[in-house]
């Protein structure tokens, strides 16, 4: 499954800063085609900023992001647009359009990029919404009528709307109940296996890390201090990594998988 393949996304020597506050400095990261890669790091270490930089919402102050070996910052608009239409992004807060219902939210990218008939679009949107585990009453609700976890699911449905090749997920299981989180994990894995997706997940959910991530990147000291399959990370003796996985929750998740 996780046969070594060419990197799809490469972050090289990335530096980002807000004013004088440097978030990343000399950060390198490779995302391989078809893998599920997790990103962990303490709160405020810049995980969301890294994701936003990788999808081109924030310009790097130094360094460059490469897709298939092509620099994101140097692409022509048309090439960039074609690339973006193969991405699905779930933001940390869901970022649903508050004036649209959940169904219209999921249909929004389809309307923009396809010429599907309206009735089929509606059905496809309802299918994606059901796939993410929302009930049949959800499609006609407005985002403000949903709970935090439901908004996450609706956001995922929108990210999946165009069956993207690359999924960027920012803390997808935060706010979900454990059953929902497990279903989320298995959906992501199933989609990856069936569609050959590449998935980049920012997460603090140790179960997700153990259950579905092929590799895990650790963000600390403004860069990726380690990128490895989780079993290797457990052997790593970086103090933050030891504390992260060696703490009571880390041990519990590890045992759950072993047992």
């Amino acid at each position: 499954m996780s046969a070594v393949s060419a990197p799809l996304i490469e972050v090289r020597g990335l530096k980002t800063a807000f004013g004088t506050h440097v978030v990343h400095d000399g950060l390198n990261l490779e995302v391989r085609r078809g893998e599920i890669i997790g990103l962990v790091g303490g709160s405020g270490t810049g995980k969301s900023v890294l994701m936003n930089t990788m999808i081109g919402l924030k310009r790097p102050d130094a360094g460059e992001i490469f897709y298939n070996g092509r620099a994101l910052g140097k692409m022509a608009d048309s090439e960039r647009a074609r690339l973006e239409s193969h991405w699905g992004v779930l933001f940390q807060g869901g970022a649903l359009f508050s004036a649209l219902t959940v169904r219209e939210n999921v249909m929004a990218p389809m309307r923009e990029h396809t010429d599907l008939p309206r009735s089929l679009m509606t059905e496809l949107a309802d299918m994606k919404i059901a796939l993410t585990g929302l009930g049949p009453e959800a499609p006609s609700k407005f985002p403000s009528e949903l709970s935090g976890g439901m908004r996450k699911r609706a956001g995922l449905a929108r990210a999946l709307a165009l069956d993207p090749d690359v999924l960027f997920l920012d803390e997808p299981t935060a706010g979900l109940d454990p059953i929902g989180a497990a279903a989320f994990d298995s959906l992501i894995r199933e989609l990856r296996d069936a569609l050959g997706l590449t998935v980049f997940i920012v997460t603090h959910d140790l179960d997700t890390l153990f259950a579905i991530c092929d590799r895990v990147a650790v963000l600390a000291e403004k860069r990726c201090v380690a990128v490895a399959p989780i079993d290797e990370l457990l052997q790593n003796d970086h103090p933050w990594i030891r504390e992260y996985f060696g703490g009571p929750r880390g041990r519990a998740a590890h045992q759950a998988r072993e047992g």
Partner: protein
Amino acid sequence: MSDVAAGLTIEEEGGRVILVPTGDWIVDTIARFASEIARIDHDIDPGRVSIDLSGIERIDTAGAYLLARPIHRARDGVTEQHFRGDHATARRLIQLVLEKAINSEPEVEDRRFGFIQAAGRIGAGLEAAWKEMIATFAFFGHAITSFASTSARPWRFRMTPIFAVMEVAGVNALPIIAVLSFFIGAVVAYMGANLLETFGASVFTVELVGIAVLREFGVLITAIMLAGRSDSAFTAAIGSMKMQQEIDAMRVLGIDPYEALVIPRIVACVIMAPLLTFAAMIAGIVGGLLVCWSALDISPQFFVTRIHDSVPIQNFWVGMSKAPVFGAIIAIIGCKQGLDVGGDVESLGRHVTASVVQSIFMVIIVDALFAMMYLELGI
């Protein structure tokens, strides 16, 4: 990425209908087949349909959904007999889509138009307007009691926000209000000069400018500018706090949102409106004075003396007396609309609009009431 054109052929074999999809069945390519598939779904017993997977190149969940549609209603479930040929992932995707998704029929919206619907809408609109009015009065009452209870404990007045609003809504509005009022004063003077000259009574332009600006224009321009400028800001600020649940957080933390958000704005507007009105009056009279000087050769000294002698001071007090009332109306409507904002951006926009429209409307209505009152009082 090889975009192999998608195709679909339909074969009949031994009483079964066989769908043979070819090429890429992905979201970008399947639009053409929607009606064909819908027809098969509608016409043909799902038990008799099979899908030949061997010609498919790439497939995604949208393609899988479309292929699954003619078979999803099969009475004894989807089984071996529904598939022919092999594909690395298609079968699995179709199963995934079938088991997780196709469970609900899309609901049909009621989209009828007609006389009864139109009448219904008018009725609903009127009822909403009536309820809105009652709610505004209730808010008014709430604000007043809140103000009274704070006045009993004056140290609870929040000075910092009061001064902040006084600066933003008041001091910063001074230049634009003064400029507008200056030009209105000038326009009134031109009109007067033109009309009164035909009677040889152009010297009365001074009275015209004095009375119009002091009694009405100074305070009206101030109120309208406050409504357009500060009301929208109040509604937007309080409304976005409401959207982010900040108001709920305040309540839970024991902070009364009326005391923290509404009272400071009302107090600031009630204090600033008369001061701005005074500035507007001065600017308006200066506008009139300059026009009289340049167009009618009435010297500034004469203008000032004449205003002093022949424009009764009541006019000034009439104008000034309205200012705090208008200030209060504007602040109350702005805060009320802000607190009414719901969860979405659309409602924020709607309430900002409503806030500006309602406050200008109310200012003009109340101004008319004042005019009637002062007429009866003979002032």
